């Protein structure tokens, strides 16, 4: 339980940071597809007895690379959809061959707070730090590339490489988030808090901070509620995320008039 709390804290802060750029760059679909498809990696890893975290990381990175690669050959939303279904189909095949109990599959998809072990803490903390540092180092070009791609290109920013690096960051965050909130709900944590933050302020640096803070509140609330009611943590992440967004929209409407 205490591990879940620690891991959840790291996960929420990083997801809030990455999510801010996901919303800014309109990358909701790839940010949904990478964790969703990476689930296949975890299923495959459990099939051959490897660590699910390794499988997740491998498939998340593979998914990010494929989306970037295919995205150069066709419309990016089609590329994302095709990569997603390819990975999910592999996941279905792995699952049909494995003897995993339903609760294990369920935990993989929807998260499980009591399943977080202390051995996962260090890799998750390392991944989170690496992702955050990369993100903050790229803060300016990412912001410019998201808001004004033409201007960024004129200033010599390598847009394609930036896109790829961003997708790989999403892949890294996916890998660290999944043990707690599950592959399906990872996305909710990356989209609702930043969308709420952006409804509250127009200033990027404040929105970025606010996004992480809201994600943190959602995560802590979800873990506490899941512990109290013994329901899956993913449900609360999804529900509180949507709630935070709804409240932020109401606040915006109230302060505007």
């Amino acid at each position, binding site marked *: 339980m205490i591990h879940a709390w620690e891991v959840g804290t790291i996960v929420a802060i990083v997801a809030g940071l990455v999510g801010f750029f996901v919303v800014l760059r309109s990358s909701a*679909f790839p940010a949904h597809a990478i964790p969703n498809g990476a689930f296949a990696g975890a299923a495959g890893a459990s099939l051959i007895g490897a660590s699910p975290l390794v499988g997740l990381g491998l498939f998340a990175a593979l998914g990010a690379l494929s989306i970037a690669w295919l995205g150069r050959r066709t419309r990016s939303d089609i590329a994302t959809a095709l990569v997603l279904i390819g990975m999910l189909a*592999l996941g*279905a095949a792995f699952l049909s061959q494995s003897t995993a109990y339903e609760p294990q599959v369920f935990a993989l998809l929807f998260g499980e707070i009591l399943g977080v072990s202390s051995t996962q803490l260090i890799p998750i903390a390392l991944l989170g730090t690496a992702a955050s540092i990369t993100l903050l180092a790229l803060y300016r070009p990412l912001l410019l590339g998201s808001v004004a791609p033409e201007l960024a290109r004129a200033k010599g920013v390598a847009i394609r490489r930036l896109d790829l690096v961003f997708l790989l960051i999403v892949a890294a965050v996916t890998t660290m988030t999944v043990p707690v909130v599950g592959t399906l709900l990872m996305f909710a944590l990356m*989209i609702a808090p930043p969308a709420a933050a952006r409804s509250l302020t127009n200033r990027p640096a404040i929105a970025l901070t606010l996004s992480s803070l809201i994600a943190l509140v959602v995560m802590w609330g979800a873990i506490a509620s899941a512990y109290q009611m013994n329901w899956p943590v993913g449900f609360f992440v999804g529900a509180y995320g949507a709630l935070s967004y709804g409240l932020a929209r109401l606040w915006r409407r109230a302060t505007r008039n």
Partner: protein
Amino acid sequence: MFAPGFFSSGSVHTALLLGTIVAIVSGLMGVFVLLRNQSFGGHALTDVATTGGAGAAYLSVAPLVGFVTGAVIGAGAIESLSRDRSQRRDVATGIVLGAATGLSGLFLYLTATTSSATGVTQQVLFGSLFSVSSSTVPVAAVTALIVTVTMALVARPLLLSSLSPDLARARGLRTSWLGLLFLLLVAVAVGLCAISIGSLLATALLIGPAATAMRRSRTITGAIVMAMSVGLAATWVGIVLAYDSFTWRATGQGLPVSFFVVAIILAFYALSHVPLSRSRRV
């Protein structure tokens, strides 16, 4: 090729019939989904359909009803959230998607803890075409017919509003109502896809064949016919291979239909990138 008992098995007949209906409807809707740049929306509806399917499993209602109801409610929610112009469509879609996924987690959890039925998670998410009850076929056929007829009626205005929304508005078309109607039709189609290859993979039938067809066909009608054909081929061959796969290993552990269907769809898509001849290369 054909494992023993393929032609005499009742569940294979049901699978083939249902697969045919689903491939035709999803090919039709898929082309329009891509024309309107709504792959993410289409995919999101499959995840909202999951919520409906999970809810149906919890309440012991027929899965098709659950899938379709879930997707239709999701379509309404996405469309009404997108009305607010200050917020972009993909964010609205994402919020609905996230909340719905959480809810399906809850339903699946409650089903697994309150009933003795096993494999609910896998069945809802990944489908099992061979275990669909034969009473689903007529319901699916009627639903599919309604979707197709409605599409035939609104095809022309829909096409105009997809390709040139300003022109459509200038001609007095209510584009936002058309958009809502279209998303509702997609929702119903997605519900049908979900019952055949599972809600997680329903996107495959919706997007895959249409993406292939639109690379090769120069007209909308041609693309629709081609998308349907690709979907049909993938579904039929997928069913044969999946049935066959039970005999591949001594343990009798087969591979799911959805895996084969998606693999074939992706193969078709890869083939569509092969240039037919140097002169026709686009």
